């Protein structure tokens, strides 16, 4: 009896376990809430904009885990793989405008002009462009009217998605234009192709150029009016600008001269109310969303849109040698990108002394600031250079170039003379309505002002360039002086 019972128990256990653990177990779906199947993702209407935002983010970030992690594309270090970093390298490094000091793979090929198809940076640019195109295609596949209907979307959502689709097509056209500009005859894939692994058709420059043009004209009506869309999203003016760029180079791409079309579309953009921002350097500051004249920005944020590309790369990589990282609002330079002596020499030959790059990242035009009117600029407070207080603690800092010896100036709290400060007795202490302060010799000065304690310091500085382009190689830097009249 006992024997039978145990035997039965064993059998029951075995059979029931077999039944419980049935073959349906193999039909799993992701259990991580961050991972959603494509079948389920659009059940949430917010997903339409979330996926759209990835299409925009594709121009900025490298993956889903800023600044790095879960990369979008592989085959290259993730930090290198962002769209803008690649784009900048491909556009600038082959020219005399920039060199790079690093030994990452075959990066030097760009400057040495001996790249080939196996260069990983060129491959990465190519892959990044097509990554963007295939994501746009996926979005267009998943947001058709039929699909929206099948998901029971209401009219408001459908209208919204229609505009999203136009923007997705704009982004695709933008990347196809980059493909055309860099690579010319390229694979052509649209939302009509399925996701898989196949050999796509190749389009020549003329076919691709026609496609981009027809796309941009086709979506024009679906895009928001110029400057009327949300910040960061493309509008009609973005499409017009892209058309203008396409037409500008049309003769190079296809042999067809389209300069008249280029001019017409440029005019449309100008007529839409864009103006050039009066302070050029402010365009490169962290609060440049307040600047006029930006038609289509790629957005970065130090906390929420982190990447090793974009401004992080452009600012950090450019700081090295005797440049002080803290002057640029960063923790340390990467000593990577510089300009060439050939560029410097060009300016010298034209009788211009040199060029200097303004500090950007970490500085904003909205910081507390004071003005430094003086003889060097015609004693006009409103047009005078600023000193800013990055920490907002009423101490100000900045750089000013004085083109002559003993150049007099003052500090004002506003763009007027209402509250102005000078220095009686040249003792380093500020006096309201005091005597003019004077920079003793021609040159570039670092000025620090403490408005709480009413003290200031003047320190003459020298800015340098370093690189294999300069005479001393990477070992030493060449001093540069600021050219005020060139605005740089």
């Amino acid at each position, binding site marked *: 009896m006992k024997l039978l019972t145990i035997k039965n128990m064993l059998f029951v256990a075995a059979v029931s376990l077999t039944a419980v653990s049935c*073959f349906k177990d193999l039909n799993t779906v992701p259990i991580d809430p961050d*991972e*959603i199947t494509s079948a389920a993702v659009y059940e949430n209407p917010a997903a339409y904009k*979330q996926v759209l935002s990835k299409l925009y983010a594709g121009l900025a970030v490298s993956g889903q885990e800023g600044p790095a992690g879960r990369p979008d594309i592989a085959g290259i270090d993730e*930090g290198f793989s962002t769209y803008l970093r690649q784009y900048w390298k491909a556009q600038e490094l082959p020219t005399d405008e920039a060199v790079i000091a690093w030994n990452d793979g075959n990066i030097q090929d760009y400057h040495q002009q001996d790249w080939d198809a196996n260069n990983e940076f060129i491959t990465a640019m190519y892959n990044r462009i097509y990554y963007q*195109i295939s994501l746009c295609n996926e979005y267009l596949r998943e947001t058709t009217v039929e699909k929206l209907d099948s998901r029971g979307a209401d009219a408001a959502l459908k209208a919204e998605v229609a505009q999203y689709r136009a923007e997705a097509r704009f982004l695709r056209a933008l990347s196809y234009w980059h493909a055309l500009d860099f690579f010319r005859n390229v694979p052509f894939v649209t939302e009509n192709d399925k996701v898989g692994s196949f050999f796509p058709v190749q389009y020549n420059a003329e076919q691709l150029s026609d496609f981009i043009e027809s796309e941009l004209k086709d979506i024009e009506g679906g895009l928001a009016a110029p400057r009327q869309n949300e*910040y960061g999203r493309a509008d009609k003016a973005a499409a017009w600008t892209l058309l203008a760029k396409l037409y500008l180079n049309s003769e190079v791409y296809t042999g067809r001269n389209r300069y008249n079309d280029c001019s017409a579309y440029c005019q449309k953009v100008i007529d839409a109310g864009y103006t050039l921002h009066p302070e050029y350097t402010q365009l490169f500051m962290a609060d440049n969303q307040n600047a006029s004249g930006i038609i289509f920005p790629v957005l970065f944020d130090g906390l929420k*849109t982190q990447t090793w590309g974009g401004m992080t790369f452009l600012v950090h990589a450019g700081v090295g040698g005797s440049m002080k990282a803290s002057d640029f609002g960063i923790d340390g330079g990467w000593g990577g990108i510089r300009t060439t002596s050939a560029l410097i020499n060009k300016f010298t030959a034209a009788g211009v002394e040199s060029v200097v790059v303004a500090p950007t990242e970490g500085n904003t035009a909205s910081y507390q600031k004071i003005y430094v009117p003086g003889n060097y600029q015609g004693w006009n407070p409103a047009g005078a250079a600023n000193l800013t207080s990055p920490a907002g603690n009423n101490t100000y800092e900045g750089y000013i170039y004085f083109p002559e010896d003993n150049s007099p100036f003052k500090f004002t709290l506003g763009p007027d003379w209402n509250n102005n400060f000078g220095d009686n007795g040249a003792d380093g202490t500020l006096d309201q309505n005091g005597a003019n302060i004077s920079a003793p010799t021609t040159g570039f000065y670092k000025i620090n002002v403490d408005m709480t304690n009413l003290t200031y310091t003047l320190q003459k500085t020298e800015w340098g360039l370093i690189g294999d382009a300069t005479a001393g190689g990477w070992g030493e830097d060449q001093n540069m002086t600021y050219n005020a009249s060139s605005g740089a």
Partner: protein
Amino acid sequence: MLAVALLFWGSTAIAQRQISGRVTDAETGEPLIGASIVVTGTTAGSIADVQGNFRLEVPADAKSVRVTYTGYTEQTIDLGASTTLEIRLLPGVALTETVIIGYGRVKREDLTGSVVAVTPKEFNKGAITGPQELLAGKVAGVQVTTGADPGGGATIRIRGGSSLSATNDPLIVIDGVPVANDDIAGARNVLNVVNPNDVESITVLKDASATAIYGSRASNGVIMITTKKGNSKKELRTEYNGSLAFSNIVQTADVLSADEYRDLIFARYGENHPARALLGSANTDWQSEIYQTGVMQDHNLSLSGGIGRLPFRISWGLTDRDGILKTDNFNRLTTAVNLNPTFLKDMLQVNVNFKAMSDKNHFADRGAIGSAFQFDPTQPTTVADGPYGGYFTWLNNDGNPNTLATANPLALLYMKNDESHVSRYLLNASADYRFWFLPALHANLNVGFDRSYGSGSVFIPADAAFAFSTGGRDEVYNQTKRNKLIEFYLNYAKQFGKNNLDVMGGYSWQHFYRNNYAFATNVDKSQVLRPADSTPREYYLLSLFGRLNYSFNDRIFLTGSVRRDGTSRFSEDNRWGLFPAAALAVKAVDRPNATFSSMKLRLGYGVTGQQDINNDYYPYLARYLASTPTAQYQLGNQFIQTLRPEGYDANIKWEETTTYNAAIDYGFWGNRVTGAIEVYLRKTKDLINYIPVAAGTNLTNFINTNVGDLGNRGIEFSLNTTPWQSDKGSWTFGFNVAYNENKITRLTKTEDPNYQGVNVGGIAGGVGNTIQIHSVGYPANSFFVYEQVYDAQGTPIEGLYVDRNGDGKLTPDDRYRYEKPAPNYLIGFTTGLNIGKFDFSAAGRANLGSYIYNNNLSNNAYYNQLYGSTNVLRNVLSPTASIDFTVPQYFSDFFISDASFFRVDHVTAGYTFNINRRIQSLRLSATVQNPLLITNYDGLDPEVFGGIDNNVYPRARTFLLGLRANF
């Protein structure tokens, strides 16, 4: 003497003589009560008494006696003229008589596949914390590359690797439970749950006819670890096994001394050059600063016996080991319990295994190894009352720590608190029931749970110079793993005259779950360095399997097996794979006492699979992945969490490896010399490969898909011999050699002669640089380099390479595939000598034809490293002067070196005392691990898995004192 001879001679026909002796456990020296001693070829015998003593009348012409004892290896003792025998039996009956295979056991001599069992007497000795290390060099074709950090893991490769992107690790089966061998967060070695002291045997299944019963996970071989069990026939046994070990670094890298460095700086930089001003006045040997004598203590206590009808074994282990890198520590507690009662007149056998581990780690930052090469030797280690923890730090011109400078190695060690605590338990219970109405049939149910929880933290204070940019680091992480197994099979085994039939069929269900969590901020929490993210994942494996063993007249053996595996990783259309295998063995010679005593021919064929694509659990499924809060995108005034469509291959399926194996097992001189010669061919098709797809056709540029074929072929030879054996002792010697050749035969779906291959093998120097490639026609991981040009003196000419494609330009197309990290030949030897109460053992290995990229040299032997324009100095390796490079030449084949080596893994000597009745035996031993290394390689250690020598934790030389006592 004469009298004895006369007596012997005169009583040939009828006379008897008396022999007596004692039977003891060869390892513990304790008596084996009840051991049976039988005169060979007769039924005359005797039984050992409580002290292990026996007396036996033997016919005068008796040549030998056979000594057997349950749980021990049978021994045949030549009698010669002696009348007193001291017989020492080795524990481990399963290992000679029967061998564990998947879902069953088979008599060793009946094996049809390539199966090798390794037992404790052959195990490596020394400071060993993980079971993998026991195996190094023991089995032909099995490469075990151990890590050198305390408690570190090991990489095992069986007959090369049959996969490329998917894992090449063998399947590990612990007491019948196939375990997941992906890493446990915070653990140094996934197998640390198995205390080597608890291991009874390790069986390696090499060819597909043996492994195919494990189907989808068996492409890279199977390693079955069996732990010790209780035995109710014995009285209570207590064993203590402890050791104390001291480890030291064998060799440090040859860098410039402080004076040499000063001279070089003065020679290369002019009078007013800033480099001169940066020189310090100290003389620091940074490498000696970071290393220490690593002390290990290891204590193990086990109790075994039977309580009533319940045989049990219970053991505890405590290991505490400091690494030779300062601050590195491993501390582990293990417990193992085995209960194996039988019920219903032995019709129901139950076996319960419980293993638990709790380990605590302090991880030293290995970056200190490389920093110690590079750090300027003229600088002091610390600055009194200085900032940044008091460690000397390179500063920027704005007075902040220079983020590009080499970090102070001691700051890396002492200002980073990287700790983890891992607990794991492995519980399995099996019940084997023999049906009362049909004893040939039995049912087996095996249920297993494997749970682990690893948690850790990394804390770097805000004033640590190397984390200055972020303001320190405060990181926590944890991981939960829960794996479950249910297996059931029926087995029918019966002899019909000369025919022997053994049929088995079963079902297996496994569920794997894991969840990783991590979150890191800086110290004041103002910046998120790693967004909080939890990533639960799971997958299932379902299988049906069956096997038929048939033998005729104990001469011809046939095995056929089939396994059908389903995985949740693939789509419904592709998820089932069928893995058949067949083998034939013929005993051509079987004359136990003859000179040519045995020969068996074996032929095997089998198909195995692979679905273990690292961390991709849903490679077939179209899905979207949300971004973390640090990768949002701003539209309007809102930052939006983006959703990214993921690349996928809806048609991904099993990778399949077909193996052909042919072997001859041989035995000479009454099987005093045995061994095998094996040849094999292994072809993998539909490789699961992480490869680029045509631009624009998928949702990313690289996906996991089935593209490519590769092959491994090789030959193995093994020899086990007992050159000397007498009643005074014995000498055993084992030797094995294996040759393997690996070649990729296809990588793209369509022929594409322009396709170079997949770049792999990241190196230090630059960012994202790789040195290896998978290319068609070459072995996996071939080095992909430029061919260096040398001057007449044999010095490499900087930047000058051979224009191999002859196009007049030097482009990346001029790189070529030059050698590979995997050795052509693996050689291992093990030897043991027992004389009276002394025992000696030694083991060693050689790898021939393995190559290394000396990344330490390529990244630390060029002049530009000396001074950085951001105002730092760095040291270089001494060969810099002879290499004479100014800028690094990472891709020169100059840095690829032959890393063949011969290493003696350990030499051990022991002495066993028989003290009194309370302490039955006491063994003292001394071991030197890694006493000898012969190699031409210039780096620190030629044994580097993956072939890229960079910041590799150096293998220590260890002196160990051991004590074992049996009560």
